Structure formats: structure tokens, C-alpha cells
């Protein structure tokens, strides 16, 4: 009896899932244009409303072959009844499956594999991203055919808009019974940005013939030594550290030589070896420590920030990122907010401490450091200033911040060394808890405060109750909200 429906069903249902502002409406219009031009009936509808402002939007188009009688067309996609889904982003591809618009027996699913992160994913204090791989795996199973590629990259390459790329992919999928020229004619007829939209269409059309492709991932080449000092440290890493830690240690040494000098990198390896000596296979704690110790030892101070901001490679990166054309002049202005504390931390330890510990002096000086500064790095004056600051690098070892950080690092390493033999999992947790310490100003203060509060609470527990799980939970709570309430509640309960 189901066949009664199928027999008279001479139509194509197309659902478009896009975010407000991506041109889903334009795409729906183009599709209808093509169909009407070929004598088909076309109906499109949508639910814009507030979703228009950056939320998820569904557009639905039904095409039917024109005949004597007018068919009754639906106003929204019905699960199991959708022939084509076009989604402008990976999680919207996922949403099409979540809503059962895409089904294995019927649907050509055309989805981008790039991500536009939702606010909950963006605003997490660590990494709150959803897993795209799982969506892609499911798409292969829950569609008759899955066409997936990075539509954003295709949009960039063609200098076009994503709706044109989606339109191209739809044309290239062959799921609609219209020739390529018909699609291109619809773009021409609209009369808006014809040349670039045709380029975007072409990108999409070709990508639809290719296998499913995820966006290009960043490839981190393993650092190769280029200097004598580098080769010596390279030899130490291979000789003194277990293999699982090699890659991170190589990155670490490279980072710290850039950050300070070979001596500082050697200190890093000494510290690492001391822990490795107590660790055992599979060397998880050592491998993770290679990463976290390098990060902590290359803490971001004024000298480091000035150095990174004034490099030629950085100037080029900015030009690239803002898509500055040939002959265009790019000026870069930084938003710096050096507080008295950061300035004192850069000074030799004795002087810095003296100022900070003298309430009258520091409150008098503080007035000069309350305002944020607009630092125009591309101006001669500010460039030279930053370069001067960066040149303080050799004096870093005498700075207050250096003394403070090394003390904290030693403390942390001590904790790791004490626990590693009895409880490798706890040691690993301690290593990883370093991720709480990051950022600048208030963010840094908050992270450090949480780190220290968790450490204190951990060691306040009887030795038998110092568990890795508890530590992981505490770190998760510290990253759950930036008011610190979640962690406070947990620590209060403990």
C-alpha cells in the first residue's frame, strides 16, 4: 500500500540547512529558478525569524514535474521523504541526520566538513569542541550518498560565497535532472557577483565528484637541529629520554632556545630526565611532562610578548590573515595592558619585589599603569620600543617573574616526583593540571589560584585518598566556569 504514494510521487524534496547570513535563501531561490526554467513546479519556504541572526535555519524546496493537475507540496521536510540535503557546515550536516532528514534509502547528503563553532564550543575555558569525525562517520551510513568537502576553503579559493559553492556541489552531485548550464544560467540571471559566483559554483561542482575530504589539518614537522648547540641537545634527547617523549621534547627544546637560550633548554632536559628516571613504560607522564614543562618554562612575560609581536614573520602573518592586497599598507595596533605588576615582574627581582611590597610606592606608580595602551607596532617609535623590550631577554634570569616561576615549577616537579613511583596516574594528573595556568592578567591570576587551591586540597587529603580521578575532576570543575564557583563547591564538599 505504501507504493500508492511512491507511484504518483514525481517530485524532489530538497532541505537546506544553513546558518543565518550564509545565503541559504539565495541558494533556495537559485534552485527554484533552475527548475522553473525547465518547466518544473517549484515551491520554497523557510523559517527565518530570529534564527536569521546566526542561528540554524532550514530552507525547504520541493520540485514537481508540471502536469494537468497541481500537486500538493509540503512546507517542511518530512523524515524519510527528503531526496537531497545541502548543509553549509559540518554540525549542520549532523543536525540534518539528527532530525532524520537524511536517510540511507533516499537521500543525497551534501555537507561541508568545515566547522563554524557554536557559542558553547567557543566560550569554554579549554576545549569544548564537538567531534567532527563522528559526524562524518555517521553521514556515510545515514545517506544514500554522502558528498563532503570543505566548502569554506572552496569559498576562499574562489573568492565567492558559500551559497555558490553549495549550488555547485548540488549541480555536480547529479541529483537534480538539470544540466550544468542551467545552474550557471540561474547565477547569471540573478545578476549579482556573477563572475565570482560562477567560480564558486565551479569549485563546488568539481568537489562533488571527489571523495569525502576533511579540512586540511595542521602538520607539525618534527624539529631538526640547525646549530651545534641544537645538535648537542638533540643527542641528549635521544640518549637520555624514553622514545614516547622525544617528539614533544624536541619541540620543547626548540621553543626554549627561541625563548631564552641553550642553557635554559638544557635545564629543561635536566628536569625532564629527573622525572623520566622515576617513571616507567609506557612513559605517559614523561611524554606529557615534556609538553607541559616546555609550556610552563616558556611562560608569557613582557619580553616574550614584545619579541613575538615585533618579528617579521608575524608582520607577514598579519598581512596574510587580513588579506591585504599588493600595494596596500597594513598598520598594526596592539591592545596592551601592562599593569604595574607585570612591569615589576620584568625588573630585577630585588627592585621588583621592593616596589610591589611597598604600598605607598606601588600605589603611586600604579596610576601610570591603569590604562590600556594602543601600541602601534608598525610605527618606528613603538617598533623600537618593543625591540628594546625584547632585547632584555639576556636579563630575564634576574627578573622577579623568573624567580617566581622557577620556584613554582620546582614545587610542581617535586610533587610529580614524589607521586610518580606509587601512583603514575596521579603523577600524570599533576602534570596535566598545568593546563590551568595560562593567559595574562586576571586570567592568569585565576588559573594560578585554581591550580594552587587544587594542589593544596589534594595534599590536604590523607595519602590514600589522593586519587587521580579526584584531581581530574577538580581540573574539570576549574574549567567549568570562570567565576570559580564550581571548583569552590567541589573543594568545599571535599
Amino acid at each position, binding site marked *: 500500500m505504501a507504493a500508492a504514494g511512491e507511484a504518483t510521487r514525481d517530485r524532489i524534496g530538497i532541505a537546506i540547512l544553513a546558518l543565518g547570513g550564509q545565503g541559504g535563501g539565495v541558494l533556495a531561490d537559485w534552485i527554484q529558478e533552475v527548475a522553473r526554467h525547465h518547466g518544473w513546479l517549484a515551491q520554497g519556504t523557510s523559517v527565518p525569524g530570529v534564527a536569521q*541572526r546566526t542561528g540554524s535555519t532550514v530552507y525547504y524546496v520541493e520540485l514537481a514535474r508540471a502536469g494537468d493537475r497541481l500537486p500538493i507540496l509540503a512546507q*517542511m521536510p518530512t523524515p524519510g521523504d527528503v531526496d537531497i540535503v545541502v548543509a553549509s557546515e559540518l554540525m549542520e550536516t549532523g543536525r540534518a541526520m539528527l532530525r532524520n532528514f537524511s536517510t540511507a534509502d533516499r537521500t543525497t547528503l551534501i555537507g561541508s566538513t568545515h566547522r563554524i563553532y557554536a557559542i558553547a564550543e567557543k566560550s569554554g575555558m579549554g576545549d569544548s569542541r564537538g567531534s567532527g569525525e563522528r559526524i562524518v562517520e555517521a553521514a556515510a551510513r545515514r545517506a544514500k550518498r554522502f558528498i563532503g568537502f570543505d566548502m569554506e576553503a572552496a569559498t576562499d579559493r574562489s573568492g565567492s560565497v558559500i551559497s555558490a559553492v553549495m549550488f555547485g556541489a548540488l549541480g555536480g552531485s547529479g541529483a537534480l535532472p538539470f544540466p550544468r548550464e542551467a545552474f550557471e544560467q540561474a547565477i547569471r540571471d540573478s545578476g549579482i557577483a556573477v563572475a565570482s559566483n560562477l567560480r564558486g559554483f565551479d569549485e563546488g561542482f568539481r568537489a562533488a565528484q571527489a571523495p569525502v575530504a576533511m579540512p586540511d589539518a595542521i602538520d607539525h614537522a618534527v624539529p631538526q637541529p640547525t646549530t651545534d648547540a641544537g645538535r648537542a641537545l638533540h643527542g641528549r634527547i635521544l640518549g637520555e629520554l624514553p622514545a614516547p617523549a622525544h617528539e614533544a621534547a624536541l619541540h620543547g627544546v626548540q621553543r626554549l632556545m627561541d625563548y631564552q637560550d641553550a642553557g635554559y633548554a638544557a635545564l629543561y632536559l635536566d628536569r625532564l630526565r629527573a622525572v623520566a628516571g622515576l617513571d616507567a613504560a609506557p612513559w605517559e607522564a614523561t611524554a606529557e611532562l615534556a609538553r607541559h614543562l616546555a609550556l610552563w618554562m616558556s611562560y608569557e612575560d613582557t619580553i616574550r610578548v614584545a619579541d613575538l609581536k615585533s618579528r617579521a614573520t608575524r608582520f607577514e602573518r598579519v598581512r596574510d590573515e*587580513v588579506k591585504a592586497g599588493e600595494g596596500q599598507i597594513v598598520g598594526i595596533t596592539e591592545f596592551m595592558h601592562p599593569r604595574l605588576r607585570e612591569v615589576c615582574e620584568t625588573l630585577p627581582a630585588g627592585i621588583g619585589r621592593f616596589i610591589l611590597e611597598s604600598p605607598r610606592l606601588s600605589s603611586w606608580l600604579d596610576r601610570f599603569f591603569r590604562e590600556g595602551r594602543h601600541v602601534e607596532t608598525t610605527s618606528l617609535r613603538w617598533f623600537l620600543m618593543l625591540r628594546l623590550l625584547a632585547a632584555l631577554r639576556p636579563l630575564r634570569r634576574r627578573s622577579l617573574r623568573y624567580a617566581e616561576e622557577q620556584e613554582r615549577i620546582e614545587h610542581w616537579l617535586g610533587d610529580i616526583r614524589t607521586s610518580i613511583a606509587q601512583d603514575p596516574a596521579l603523577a600524570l594528573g599533576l602534570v596535566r593540571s598545568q593546563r590551568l595556568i*595560562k593567559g595574562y592578567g586576571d*586570567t592568569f591570576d585565576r588559573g594560578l589560584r585554581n591550580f594552587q587551591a587544587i594542589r593544596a586540597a589534594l595534599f590536604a587529603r590523607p595519602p590514600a585518598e589522593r586519587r587521580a580521578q579526584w584531581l581530574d575532576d577538580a581540573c574539570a570543575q576549574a574549567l567549568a566556569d570562570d567565576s570559580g564557583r564550581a571548583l569552590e563547591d567541589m573543594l568545599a564538599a571535599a
Partner: protein
Amino acid sequence: MAERSFAAEVELLKLGEGETFTGEGILAVTKALLQSGVAYVGGYQGSPISHLMDVFADANDLLASLGVHFEASASEATAAAMLAASVNYPLRGAVAWKSVVGTNVASDALSNVASGGVTGGALVIVGEDYGEGSSIMQERTHAFAMKSQMWLIDPRPNLPSIVDAVEQGFRLSEASNTPVMLELRVRSCHMTGSFVAKDNLRPAMTVDEAAAAPVRDTSRIVLPPANFLHEVEKVEKRWPAGIAFVRENRLNEWFGPDEGEVGLIVQGGLFNSLNRAMELLGLSDAFGAARLPVYCLNVTYPLIPDEVAAFCRGKRAVLVLEEGQPEFIEHELNTLVRRADLQTRIVGKEVLPRAGDYTAHVMAQGLRTFLAEWQPALDLPDLSIAPLPAPVAAQIPQRPAGFCTGCPERPVFTSMKLLERELGPTHVSADIGCHLFSILPPFNIGNTTMGYGLGTAGASAFKPKDKRAIAVMGDGGFWHNGLTSGIGNAVFNKDDTVTVIVDNGYSAATGGQDILSSRADNRARTTRHPIERAVRGIGAGWVRTVDRTYDLKRMMAALREAMTSPERGPKIVVAQSECMLNRQRREKPRVRKAMSEGKRVVRERFGVDPDTCTGDHSCIRLSGCPSLSIKPNPDPLRRDPVAHVDNSCVGCGLCGEVSHAAVLCPSFYRASIVANPGRWEGRWKALRSRLIGALQKRDARLRAARAF
């Protein structure tokens, strides 16, 4: 100026007899009004009927040539009151708004016009914002039609039916002296399709002609004893006339076989979805050749007792497919079959959900349950689909609406969030408008919202001694009613609340229509009436205008002062910056033109240095800008994603202000990109960059020497 230009749509309104109109549902209604000889149109913008208002606003010349008066009303109450023109004169008039909220606002005038009745056809077009994507409370306009006795048309969702409903609606209104509501669901408003047009008709009488020859009839005015007579007239005269018209003109429709053991009664607006459900179950085909009798109610109020009785007679059970609750139609059908002494069982909400959209999928399931009991011999296919496995589903994030890129309202809430750190949490009474997105992540600001323009009124019960409540109001809501219901009330009652009026120059949430305080010039209306002058005129003493919301320091200072000032009485902060969406729409083509002409153009945008960003994302929690996102960390040692500004950035500057005000991080930079620099500028900057480049090269050499 509205969000988009409707010049092309205005052309559609000019189509003549026999030409094919292809376009959106709400535009088809607009055309149908002109074909019906409407004399005046009013309304208040809002999804999903904004386009009707916008097209009419752009169609001044056409309307003038036809002698049709159009007005963008100050509120739905204003629009409804306009229908007074049809009370004494044979003027056809139509007003439009978003329902159910607009109907709430209009209800005083609606009750009055429904009581006295009309001479000319009066049509109320309601965009029913119910179901998926809706931004308002889920209620039914049906209740209003019933309580005030206005007929409710809910046509089948295809353009010819909708256009026909407009024309028949006027005739029904005139035949029964009753205002008629035409209900269009969101999807029908935005649905494209075609119909064969007719010539536009000049109104038989224009509003000018009516005003020139005034008619006075006290029996039409709601005051004793006329109001009691109206009630009797409604029941004895207008009701039967309405029923007779609907029946004689066969406004309702029948599908499928004449006879059957069971039947279906459906609201016209749901018909297409029902047919799809039946088709998937093998009970109909693509053309509506149903295998069960279907009675389609294009008029959902009143029901036609004879038609209902005839349909139900001989059937064991009838399923009524009625969206929303309470189930008024189901109740009425039960009464009607009882009165007709039929034994037909009326089945409705017992097999269908009490709440939510009646999608084809939902109706198919209800239908299966119904038929399993009442016609078990039918063998129906199973339409269920295995859900996406939970571990995959859990990866898909919610995507709540948010402020647009560069939105000037965002810094207002950033300021409030930062101020909260100083002064502690405050009760915030939110309003309707884009600014209501403040209640969503990342701001999470706002405790209640009570209706358009009612932000300040919503805070009026709070009279704490030391902690003031904050009310938010948009400029749209302010002119809609907030000036009196909020500010006037606060002045009169000596409220001590703080009101932030978001003055972005447009009624931005509904599509960027001009309002009294718009700064743009408008050919047809007057603008540039400052909000500050209005609130001072009504007696507010403490008023501060911040004319650049992006300036966090000033924004915060104004709010801080408002929260802590010893002065009593309402404190009003007018937060001004132009809606970025509208601004970009205007600026972008201008800049593109200047660029192509070789003129000097400066473009600004923001960026984040990935090597100094540590991935805490405080900046995102304080901004939420769509262009401020995250990307995988390019650092081989770090794992957390870094903040990243994409190319949609419009350079509003909030990122930088936030990192200053909240002492965040030195990773943000502002890039100013100068295209077509002047000759001297080009030379000087080239020299400068050569100098800097030489120093950088030297530094890089030294760095390489001590590198790994």
C-alpha cells in the same frame, strides 16, 4: 530604510489580469489586497509579515496612483484602531501584524471594532508565529477570534487559495458586518509559488472621499445602550449571516470519497502537511486524492453546523487535526455532533500531541494511532526511523540566535557583565528586540521579559533600597509604548530603576525599519526625533546619552553612575550606535565603489596572534561576536583551540576594548589596511617598512644563530 529594497517586489504588485505572479506568500497577500480594491492599509512590522509592510512602504507611488492610503502604524493598537474607518463607510481596509503578540497589543481596538461591527470589509492579517523558529509565547489567535467574534480564515497553503481567501475575506466581512482575521502561518508567509493575477482595483470610495462626507451613527459606538444591542446583533444577525456566506460560497473544502467509516477534519493551513502524511501512509497521492473523507476547514471560526453534521453522519469516528491548545475546534465539534444527536466519536488530542508543530511526521503518527483503533483493517507502513545514536547526537551543539557581527548592542551587555564584577548581580528586566539575545550565552543577562517596550514596566515592582534593578528597552519598543508605559510610569511613580535604551536607529529586529528617532532621512516620514528629548519631555531628570556604545569606558561609566548616583527617580542611559547590519548594507557598496575608483580607502579589522593566545576564551565570553571564533591551535605543544577573528570582521573595535577593560591578553591586534594610499603616504610608509624590515632581518639572523 528597511533591511532590503523591495523595488522588484513592487513591480510584482503592478501585474495585470492574466499575468502570472511568482513570489512569496505574504507578497501574494499584498497583491490580493490591491486586487480587492482596498482603500487603506496599516500594520506593524514583525516576522513573518514584515515584508508586507516593507513592500507597501516602497510602493508609495503605486499606492498613490490607486488612491490607497498606507501607514506604518506606531503599534498594532494603532493599526487596529485604523479599522474604525470601515465602521461608518464602505471602505475596505486591512491591517497586518505578528500574532499572537500583536493581537494582544491590538485587542482593545479589536474588541471595539468587533462590537460595533463594520460596513466596509475589514481584514486583519495575522502572521501566526507558532511552532519551529518562533520567538514568542505559543498561543492561538483562535481565542481572540472567538471572544470578540471575528471570523477566522485559515486557508490551504498555496498561493491561489491564499489570494482567494483575501478576496473572499472582504466579502465575508461585508456580508456579516464582522471583521475577519486571515491567519497565515510562518511557512506560508515565506512560501514561494504562483497565481494568476487580476488587475488592481481602485477603491470604490477613497479615505479622502469618506473624510469629506462624514457619517455619524451612535448605534455603532460602544457605549450603553448600543453595546448591549451589539451583543444581540452579533448573535442574531451577524453570526447567521457569516455562516450563510461561508456555506453558500463553499469556503470550506472536501477531499476524498463522500462516504467512509472514518473521516478527518483539518485546519486549512495544515492541509498540505496532512496530505503528505497520508501520502506516506499510502492513504492519498501527490494530488490530494485521499482514500479517506477529508473536510478541510478554510474557515476555522465559525464552524458550520450543517456541514459538520453532514460530514460526521454515518461515520464511526472523525479525527480532528488541530494545532495548538486549547483544542477549541475539537470542543466545538463535540458540541455540534451532540446537538445533531450523532453517535460519531470525535478524536483529537488523545492521539495527537497537545503542544507543538503538527508536522507531517507528527500527523502521520497520530493518524496511525487513530486508524489502528477505528479502522484496523488498513495495513499501514511503519514510518519510524532509527534515531541518530546518542554518542553522535551529543556532538551536535545548540545554535541559539545571537548578536550579529559588530552589533553595537553587544558592548552594552559586555559593560553590564564587567560592571557585575564590581557591583554584584542585579535584577535585569529584559525587553523584546535583538537585545533580548542578552539572555542567551555568552552574556546570560536578563531575568524576565514581559513584552515589547515593557522592559522598564517589568522592573517597576522592584524598589530595593540600595541595589537598583536594570531595565533594557529597544528604540523600537520605546516608541511602540515604552515612552509612556515605562518611562512615564517610572517618573510618575518615582521609580529608582536604571533603564538602558538601546538606540540603534532602526526597528532592527523586524528588518531595520525607520522609527521616529532614526537618524536617516526618509522621504515619506519624519525622523530625527531624539529619544533623550522625549524622555526629558515626559519628566525624566537623570538622562545620559552615550553616542558610541563601543566605547566601553564611557558605557561602563554611564552605567556605573546610573547604578550608584544618589539622585532619586528613574535613571536613563541612551546607548547609541547604528545597527551594524544596516550600516554595512549602506557602507559596503560605497567602499567598493571608492576602491574601484582608486580612492584612498581604509579598512579596519581585528585579529588574534595565535602564538600569544593561550586559549582561555575570556574574550569570547565577553563578546560573543560571530566573527570572533576559535581554530585548532597551530602550536605543536598546545591543545586548547586559539581564538581567531575571521574575515567577516567589520572592525567595530569591541575586541580591543574588551581586552583593555577586562585586562585580558595582548593577543588582539587591530589592522588598518590602506588601499590606494596617497603618494606621500605611500613613500613614507615604504621607507618606514624598509627600515623596520632591515632591523627584523638582523634580529632573525641572530635568533637563527642561537636556535635549535
